[in-house]
């Protein structure tokens, strides 16, 4: 709505954001856990005067913390670029609500970067206790960034008692119903990732002495064990998400159900694998074993992210704004141009001038051209046309124009993942005319 729409062929905006966000989340998440692992292990190594362990930690800090961290920080900025292109109205509202939260998070990013570079480049050059203190500062600052960003992200699915412009809106939005379970979960997963990566690094580095191996492996297991809590935290998070979303997960949307189940399975396997390894006193895990543990943590977490994104449909901000940028009755009093009520009266094209062919007015368009414009404004956010992300043509292969037309009246009721049609009856006619040109029975 209101903004020009960038149509990235095949992938669409959602996949664009996902492609940048997924690597970012992993690296950022991992670096939180890794900084704890380093700080803890270094403290002990300093106390015991254990220079061999310190040497291993130094490698760990450079290769798996600093090098990917730089990538993580820059993809993090990339998410801003991608969302502003793919979903400007949503990011606009988010920033007007949360700018101080993001600004607070930003101050900690600065601490993170300074700390991480100093930590890596002062190794063996300064007093060990001072070096370890840098590690602890990094652990604390990166944890604070995780907490702050998660308050903002979790809001999007569970806004709780937040109302636009009502008093204490920021705090209600931030400490929303899924804040605690998801914050804890992200934190525990970050520890698990750091532990599992330490195992893999040791498995790959043949030169690590046996004594170091045993110490670090024990620590890694202990860092992975808390991920067991996800088996409680996930159902807790599930219990506070909207009923509609719960139904998606309970079978209403098969992909969602599968991913939720797979996520639970992965976390179970991660915990089980860790416990088993501890019981068997396996201090020398193989590359395969360590990779499997990373895989479970990674896939479990990716499933959780997928479900979080999917379960929010048709909204981008639950109950307030649809993925298309149209606001619900919650935004109606404030949003003069593109609330559902306004658009139903004036038409979706009244707030989407950019989707018209340049230099032409609505009155000059053929019904099919007008229908295509409506499609761009109301459907393109979730559907490519011919092929690619949730492409619509394959979905409507044998439909007639009449079927299409009547489908638009009840699209939300039939498919709760879709918003109600945001326009006038004449626009529905035009859209049906356009979509009919895509079908086999067309016209």
């Amino acid at each position, binding site marked *: 709505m209101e903004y*020009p729409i960038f149509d990235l062929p095949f992938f669409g905006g959602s996949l664009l954001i996902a492609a940048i966000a997924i690597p970012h989340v992993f690296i950022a998440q991992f670096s939180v856990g890794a900084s704890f692992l380093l700080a803890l292990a270094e403290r002990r190594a300093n106390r015991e005067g254990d220079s061999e362990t310190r040497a291993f930690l130094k490698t760990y800090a450079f290769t798996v913390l600093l090098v990917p961290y*730089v990538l993580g920080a820059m993809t993090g*900025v990339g998410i801003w*670029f991608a969302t502003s292109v793919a979903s400007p109205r949503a990011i606009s509202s988010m920033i007007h609500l949360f700018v101080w939260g993001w600004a607070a998070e930003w101050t900690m990013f*600065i601490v993170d970067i300074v700390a991480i570079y100093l930590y890596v480049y002062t190794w063996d050059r300064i007093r060990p206790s001072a070096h370890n203190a840098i590690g602890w500062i990094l652990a604390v600052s990166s944890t604070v960034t995780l907490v702050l960003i998660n308050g903002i992200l979790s809001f999007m699915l569970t806004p709780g008692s937040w109302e636009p412009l009502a008093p204490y809106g920021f705090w209600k939005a931030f400490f929303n119903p899924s804040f605690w379970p998801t914050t804890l979960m992200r934190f525990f997963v970050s520890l698990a990732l750091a532990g599992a990566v330490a195992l893999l690094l040791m498995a790959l580095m043949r030169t690590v002495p046996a004594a170091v191996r045993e110490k670090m492996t024990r620590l890694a297991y202990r860092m992975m064990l808390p991920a067991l809590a996800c088996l409680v935290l996930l159902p807790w998070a599930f219990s506070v998400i909207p009923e509609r979303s719960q139904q998606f997960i309970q079978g209403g949307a098969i992909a969602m159900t599968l991913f939720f189940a797979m996520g639970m399975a992965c976390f179970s396997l991660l915990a089980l694998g860790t416990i088993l390894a501890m019981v068997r006193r396996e201090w020398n895990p193989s590359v395969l074993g360590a990779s499997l543990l990373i895989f479970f943590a990674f896939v479990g977490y990716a499933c959780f992210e997928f479900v979080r994104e999917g379960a929010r449909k048709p909204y981008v901000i639950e109950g307030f704004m649809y993925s298309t940028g149209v606001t619900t009755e919650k935004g109606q009093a404030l949003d003069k141009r593109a609330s559902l009520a306004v658009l139903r009266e004036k038409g979706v094209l009244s707030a989407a001038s950019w989707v018209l062919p340049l230099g032409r007015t609505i009155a000059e368009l053929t019904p099919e051209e007008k229908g295509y414009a409506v499609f761009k404004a109301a459907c393109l956010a979730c559907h490519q046309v011919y092929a690619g992300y949730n492409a619509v043509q394959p979905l409507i292969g044998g439909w007639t124009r009449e079927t299409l037309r009547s489908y638009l009246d009840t699209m939300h009721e039939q498919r709760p993942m879709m918003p109600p049609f945001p326009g006038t009856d004449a626009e529905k006619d035009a859209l049906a005319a356009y979509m009919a040109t895509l079908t086999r029975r067309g016209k």
Partner: protein
Amino acid sequence: MNSQLIPAPDMLGLPAHPLLLLVLLNATLALHWVFVGAVFGGTLIVLHNAVTGRGDAARARLNQAILGFLPFMLSMGVTLGVAPLLFVQVVYGHFFYSANVMMALWWLLIIPLVIGTTYLFYVAKVRLAAGKVLGPFLPAILAGILLVLAMILSGNMTLFQTPSAWESVWRLHGAGFYHGGGMVGRVLFALLGFAALGAMFVMLLGKTGLAYDEQADRAAVEIGLRAAPMCMGLQIAAGILLVIFLPSEQRKAVFDFRWVSLFSVLAIGCLAGSLLLFVKARRSPTLSTLILPMAVYVLGLIMIGFARDGIRRAALAPHFQLGELAIHPQWGPFALFLAMMVVAAGLVTALLHLARQTD
């Protein structure tokens, strides 16, 4: 143009008075410029050394030292850029996002370019550390990428304050690149300043003894002191031309004897003052004689930020006034931000202190 094409300001209004937001915007933007400027200017000096310093071991070591710092400086520059990115969205979001979408492909290209630059810095440094010769090829590529980055940034910032150009840029549906509206002058002005900042950064490396050894340190100060005043002189000239060739309503804003004029004068004053102080410092370039002109220059950057923002508002005046934005202050969250800022400043100080604890 069709006024329907301009989105409405966000319905949630501003979380603070716009003046507060603009002060934060320009203060953090100046910091962003300091670091990305050091990266661009530092790269130019590396290139200069690679071209003119063949076989000069001290300059090769200086290059290695500069390159060793650049990934960090770039990470800082990018991260510092996030704060103005937040505030510019809050105040000008409805124009800013529109321009982002119109130049989407370029806008998105920034991220892979920045990532590529960081790792190429490592590659160049590793070459030198391994005792190999660093020819001009890699530094030239790096300078070229940074130039493209600055052009994308300036193109986007200029496009967002020029709605009359939107329709023509949108003809390419996200692949359009905007270079009208005074954009070329802006980039030139910015990059001359960045070159000066790079010279200052290299000087600082030399003066704080971070360029490996005495000879390299001396080369750093020498090159920096030669380059900085020259770049500043050119920047002042470019700034004057930039103003003269601004679209008329924006030029009027500079000469209307109000805030924009004041900031413009202060900006030029700071640049000129810094230039003179550097020339004077040439005789005895100690750390303390160099810090002052650097501080004056950074102050100048903040003034440039405010003048630039006033000109932007003059350009947007037919479509938008700050006064039309609703304000719904969020004092609690603002206090959280301030508190975190203080904590962060304390932590960074502590970190720098810890990093000097060599028994």
